[in-house]
């Protein structure tokens, strides 16, 4: 069962970490750009 937990866990963690990375990059770029309509 540990393999199963590992499989579920790694999938979840990797996707969450990637999501956070994408969001962080978006925030950094938005800050660096002049304030804008979006």
């Amino acid at each position: 069962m540990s393999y199963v937990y590992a499989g579920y866990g790694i999938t979840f963690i990797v996707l969450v970490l990637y999501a956070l990375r994408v969001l962080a990059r978006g925030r950094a770029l938005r800050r660096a750009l002049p304030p804008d309509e979006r």
Partner: protein
Amino acid sequence: MTAPRWLTRALGLGALAFAAAAAIDGLWVMGPTAEQGDYSRLLVVHPPVATLAYVGFGITAIASILYLWPRTRRREWDLLAGASAEVGVVFCGLTLITGSIWGRPVWGVWWTWDARLTAEALLFALFLGYLALRRVPASDHVRARRCAIAALIACLDIPIDHYATSWWQTLHQGSSIDLLQPDKHLDTAHNVGLGLGFIALGLAFAWLVVHRYRVEQLEARYEHEALSIALEARHAEGRVEVPA
């Protein structure tokens, strides 16, 4: 031109909700199967990520064609191609990892030159190359066109890979235990789990592509405005130093 905020929020929340449901079904409700005991629970995770990796690269391929075709050429297709490819690579990597984790207890090894895994590994390599190419600086149109062509070259390879690796496998391995058993042994809980997994990961995929696309848009603007931003900063410095 991007998805409205309420939609992306819905996607995100939906993904989390279905993920919880899928996990409950996969880890609790589902029982072990005859062939693989508990490991068939990985059905909830592995086939969906594998399918979504292909979806990701499929979107990249179609967006690339749309960009290359003069009548439909728009910068947006290039941005979509890049975003979808990166998300696709993440899912492809997960496919390899979950495939390996599944294979270890069932086959006894972390890796085997199974047709599917091998083809998946090649897919991963192909699109890592594409992502590397995207980072090479050039003018907008030149880079977009170059990447679009590279994406198509890679995609043409995919069916050939599958053909070749599956013949290779039958030659060298005969039939090993297929991770995905024929469905006659899958009961309702398994099928529900598979469905929930697809929905949860599918929603997550969509959410990720939308947000990654937005980042591509911002990067594109940043590249254009970076020079004027820097100049602004220098001017601001100059102004402060002048005595009142």
